[in-house]
C-alpha cells in the first residue's frame, strides 16, 4: 500500500480512493489530539495527586493515541497529494505530524510494563517523550489550521492592542477597488474585472492557497492558468474554462465558486464574459473596447447611471437595450420608518405601502382618505426619509399642506390632482429636487406656477389637464425645459374630432399610406 501511495506521488493525479481516504484526515486528526491531551492531563493528575487512574489506563490511551496519530499521518499524506497547499507550511506540518506519531509510540512503549522490564532507563524517557509529542501536536494543529483556513484566519479579528503584543501586523485592509466615477474612463481589468475576482475567487486561488494550481491574484498568474492549462481564451469567452465553470449548474462538482460560497451574480459573469470576448486586455479602458447593447446597462449600473458612450462602441439601438437603472431614490438604503409613526398615518386614513420587500421606502396613499387635510399633512415629514411616492389627489388639502410636502426631500412622485393647491403652493416645492412625477390636473395652477416648476431639475413628467395654464405658459415651460414631458388632455372640441374619425386621416407628416 505504501508503494502504491508513493507511486501515486510521482504520477500525475492521485486515484479517487486515495483522495477519498485523504478527505478523512480532518476527521481522524482530532482523535490523537483528544487522546494525547487526555493522557497528558491524567499524567499531570497522577503527578500532583495520590489516588488516581491506573497507569494501565494511561497506557491504553497512549496506544490509541499512537495508532490514531499514525492513521492521521497516512490520511494527511493522501490529502496532500490532491495538491493546492502551500508547500513550505505543508512540509513542516507533515514532519510535525509524523513527530507526534513517533513520540506517541515511544511514550506508549516505555510506559507499557513489558518494555519497562527490558529497557532500564525507560522511565526516564517517558515524560519527555509525552511532552514532546504534546508540543508537536500543538504546533502541527496550528499549521494544519493555517493550511485549511489561511494563515491569517486566527488573527484576522485580533483586536489592535493584542496585535501589538503578539507582533501581528495591523489588520490588512479589505480589498477595495478604486471607485468608478466615469465608466467610460474606467480601467477594465483594474476597476471592473479584478474587483470581481478579488471578492469571489482569490480566497482560494492565491499565493498561499492555490486550488487546482490556479492563482488569480495577479494578472501574470491568471494568464498562467491552472494545472491543466490556461483558464481563459482571449476573445472567446464561451471556450474559456473561467466562464464555463461559472455557468455550470451549482450542483456540479466543477461549478465555481464551489457550492456554499458566495456566488457570482449574473451581471458579474456578463462582465467577465465581455472582458474575455474583448481579448481580455489588462491595460485598457472601457472606452477603448466595444460596448454592445447587452453589456451597456450592466456597465452603466457600475456607476449607478449615466450614459455609456464607448469610443468604438456599436451604436446604441433602443430596441435591444435592457431596462434602465432605477432612480437612486428607490434603491438607496434608508432606515426603516418608526412603526408608531406608521400607525399614526394609518389612523389618519392613509395607506402606507412598502415599495418592496427589500427596501424601507414607502408609498403613502390617501385614496381612501378624501377628508385628508392640511392639519394632518403635518404627519408626513415624520417619514421624510422613507416617503418616495405620495398620493394626495382628490383630498381636502390646499397650499398649506405643501409646506409640509416640501420637507419630503426624497419624494419621487407626487399626486396633487383635483385639490385646492395653487401657484402659491407650488412655489414651496422648489426644494424637491428628486421629484420626477408631478400630477396637477384639475387644480387652479396657472402659468405663473409653471415658471417655478422649471427649477425642479429632475422633473420628467408634469400633468396639467384641466388647469388654468395657457398655451403661452406651456410654450414658455417647454422652451425652458425641453426635456420635460408636459401632458395635457382632451377638451370638448377635440373629443368631437376624435370620435368622428372613422377611417384614418392622412395628416401631413404623420402617417404615410402604403
Amino acid at each position, binding site marked *: 500500500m505504501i508503494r502504491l501511495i508513493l507511486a501515486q506521488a510521482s504520477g500525475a493525479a492521485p486515484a479517487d480512493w486515495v483522495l477519498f481516504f485523504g478527505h478523512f484526515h480532518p476527521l481522524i486528526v482530532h482523535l490523537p489530539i483528544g487522546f494525547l491531551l487526555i493522557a497528558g492531563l491524567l499524567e499531570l493528575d497522577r503527578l500532583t495527586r495520590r489516588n488516581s487512574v491506573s497507569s494501565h489506563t494511561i497506557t491504553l490511551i497512549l496506544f490509541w493515541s499512537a495508532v490514531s496519530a499514525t492513521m492521521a499521518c497516512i490520511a494527511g499524506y493522501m490529502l496532500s497529494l490532491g495538491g493546492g497547499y502551500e508547500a513550505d507550511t505543508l512540509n513542516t506540518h507533515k514532519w510535525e505530524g509524523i513527530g507526534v506519531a513517533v513520540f506517541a509510540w515511544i511514550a506508549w512503549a516505555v510506559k507499557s510494563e513489558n518494555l519497562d522490564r527490558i529497557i532500564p532507563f525507560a522511565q526516564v524517557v517517558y515524560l519527555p517523550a509525552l511532552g514532546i509529542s504534546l508540543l508537536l501536536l500543538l504546533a502541527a494543529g496550528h499549521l494544519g489550521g493555517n493550511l485549511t483556513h489561511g494563515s491569517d484566519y486566527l488573527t484576522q479579528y485580533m483586536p489592535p492592542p493584542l496585535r501589538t503584543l503578539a507582533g501581528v501586523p495591523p489588520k490588512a485592509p479589505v480589498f477595495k477597488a478604486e471607485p468608478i466615477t466615469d465608466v467610460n474612463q474606467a480601467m477594465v481589468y483594474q476597476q471592473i474585472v479584478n474587483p470581481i475576482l478579488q471578492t469571489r475567487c482569490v480566497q482560494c486561488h492565491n499565493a498561499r492557497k492555490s486550488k487546482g494550481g490556479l492563482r488569480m491574484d495577479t494578472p501574470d498568474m491568471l494568464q498562467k492558468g491552472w494545472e491543466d492549462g490556461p483558464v481563459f481564451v482571449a476573445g472567446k469567452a464561451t471556450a474559456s474554462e473561467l466562464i464555463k465553470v461559472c455557468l455550470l449548474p451549482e450542483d456540479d462538482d466543477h461549478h465555481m465558486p464551489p457550492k456554499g460560497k458566495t456566488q457570482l451574480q449574473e451581471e458579474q459573469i456578463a462582465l467577465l464574459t465581455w472582458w474575455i470576448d474583448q481579448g481580455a486586455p489588462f491595460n485598457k479602458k472601457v472606452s477603448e473596447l466595444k460596448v454592445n447593447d447587452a453589456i451597456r446597462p450592466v456597465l452603466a449600473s457600475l456607476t449607478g447611471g449615466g450614459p455609456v458612450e464607448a469610443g468604438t462602441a456599436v451604436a446604441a439601438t433602443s430596441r435591444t437595450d435592457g431596462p*434602465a437603472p432605477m432612480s437612486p431614490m428607490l434603491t438607496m438604503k434608508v432606515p426603516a420608518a418608526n412603526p408608531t409613526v406608521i400607525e399614526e398615518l394609518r389612523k389618519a386614513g392613509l395607506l402606507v405601502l412598502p415599495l418592496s420587500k427589500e427596501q424601507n421606502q414607502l408609498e403613502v396613499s390617501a385614496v381612501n382618505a378624501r377628508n385628508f387635510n392640511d392639519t394632518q399633512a403635518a404627519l408626513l415629514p415624520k417619514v421624510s426619509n422613507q416617503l418616495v411616492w405620495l398620493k394626495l389627489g382628490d383630498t381636502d388639502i390646499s397650499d398649506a399642506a405643501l409646506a409640509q410636502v416640501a420637507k419630503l426631500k426624497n419624494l419621487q*412622485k407626487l399626486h396633487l390632482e383635483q385639490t385646492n393647491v395653487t401657484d402659491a403652493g407650488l412655489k414651496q416645492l422648489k426644494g424637491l429636487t428628486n421629484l420626477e412625477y408631478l400630477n396637477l390636473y384639475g387644480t387652479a395652477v396657472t402659468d405663473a406656477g409653471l415658471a417655478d416648476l422649471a427649477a425642479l431639475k429632475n422633473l420628467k413628467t408634469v*400633468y396639467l389637464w384641466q388647469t388654468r395654464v395657457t398655451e403661452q405658459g406651456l410654450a414658455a415651460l417647454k422652451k425652458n425645459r425641453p426635456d420635460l414631458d408636459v401632458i395635457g388632455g382632451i377638451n370638448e372640441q377635440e373629443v368631437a374630432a376624435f370620435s368622428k374619425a372613422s377611417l384614418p386621416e392622412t395628416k401631413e407628416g404623420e402617417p404615410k399610406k402604403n
Partner: protein
Amino acid sequence: MDIQDQIHDQLSRRNFLGQASAGLGTIALASLLNPVNLFAGTSASDNPTVGKPHFPPKVKRVIYLFQSGAPSQLELFDYKPKLEAMWGQDLPASVRNGQRLTGMSAGQSRFPLAASKYKFSQYGPGQMWISELLPHTARIAGDLTFIRSLHTEAINHDPAITFFQTGSQQAGRPSFGSWVSYGLGSDNQNLPAFVVLLSKGRDGDQPLYAKLWSNGFLPSVHQGVVFRSGPDPVYYLNNPPGVDKSSRRRMLDYLGKLHHEQFKRVLDPEINSRMAQYEMAYRMQASVPETLDISKEPDYIFDMYGPESRKPGTFAANCLLARKLVEKDVKFVQLYHQGWDQHGNLPNDIKTQAKSVDQASAALVMDLKQRGLLDDTLVIWGGEFGRGAYSQGKLTRDNYGRDHHPRAFSVWMAGAGVKKGMVYGETDDFGYNVVNEPVHVHDFQATILHLLGVDHEKLTFKSQGRRYRLTDVHGKVVKPILV
C-alpha cells in the same frame, strides 16, 4: 369518536407543529431581518393579505382588455403584402411545416392564402402598421408597444384562454389576477384587488367560464370579483329590502363571533377567508357605488369612449368602469370581450367587431394618460391566439374565413414600464411563423409580473405537495421591451 373531534385533533396537531416550527420562528426571523415587515404584519386586520413586491414596481395596476375568440392579427396589426401577391395560391408546405390544424379546416383540400381585405398604414414615431379597421387605435400609436411574435401551445379557445389566464391549459390553477392579488395585496382595502368586467357577448360567441378568474388553490379572497355596469354592479351586494346598514353591521358582528368559534374548533383557514370576504363586501356596499358612479362624468368623456359607453354592459362602458376602478387603485382589472372567432364571413364580422372596441380602447389609454395614471398603469390588449394565413372555407375577393393559429399573433400594451412606439418580434411573409424575437405566453406573463415588481420564479404557492407558479417552470422576462 365524533367526526368533529377527529377534525379538531388532526388540525390542532398539524397547526401546533406548523406554528411551532414555522410561525414563531418566522416572526422572530422576520423581525430580525426587517423590522418593517413587522408593522406590515400587524396591520393584517385592515389588509389581510399584504404582499410586497420583490423590487420597486414600474406598474402598479393592470387593465387587461382580453379579446376572446382570437382577433385576426392579419386584418389588424401584422401587415403582410406577400399575402396579396400570392392571393389564392396554396400555403407553401415549407411554411406550414406539418403544423397541426383544427378539425374545422384540416380536411380542406386546398389552403388558399387570403390577404387582408383592409388596408394598412404606418403610424406614430415607431412607424407601426395598423389597419384601417382601428382608426382610433392608430391615433395613440405613439403610446403603444407591440409584440408581434407571441406564440402559444393551445389551438382551441378554452385551453388557450385558460393557458393565458392561469399558465396551464387544464383548469384549476389560479388566474393571473389572483396571483397578483396574492402576491401584492391591495392598494385600497375597500375594494377587491382583482376585478372582472364582462362585456355582453352575442349568441354563438365562445363562452367564458368563471374558472378564468378563479383563485384555484389560493385562498379564496383572491378570487376575481365580477362587476357589472348599471345600478347593481355586484350581485347580492345591496342589502335586501327591510335590512338597514346598522342591522347588517350587527348581523356581521354576530356572524363573526360564530365564525370565530367555528374556527377555534376546526382551524380551517377558509373560515377566516370567508369572514374577510364578508367584511370586504360590507365595505364595498359604500365604496362600490361611489367608485362606479358615472353620473358625474361629463358628456364629452362619454363621447370620447363612444356612444356605446352610455349602454351598461358594453365594451365601451366597461372601459370607462375600468378607468374608474384604477383611479381607486384596484390592482388588476380583467375585462373580457367576446366575439372575435371569425371562421367565416371574416371581412364583415371583424369590421363590426373592431368598431365595437376601437374607440373605447384608444379613449381608455388617452383618458388614463391625461389623468396621470398611464405612468403606473399598464393596459394590455390581445386575444388567446391568432388566425391563420389561409382561408378557411371558400376564398373570394370579398369573403373568406380564418382558422385558429397559435404559432404567431400580436398584442399591444400601453403604459408604464414598456417602450412607447416599439414593435417587438417579427413574423415571416405569411404571418405564420415567428422569425425573430419570439415571445411565449409564459414569457409574456413573466414580463408583466416583472413590471409589477414580482420575480415570477419567486411568486409560488404550495399545493398538493408541490410549489406552483403562474409561469409553471418556464418564462423569461422580455427585457428589450422594458423602459
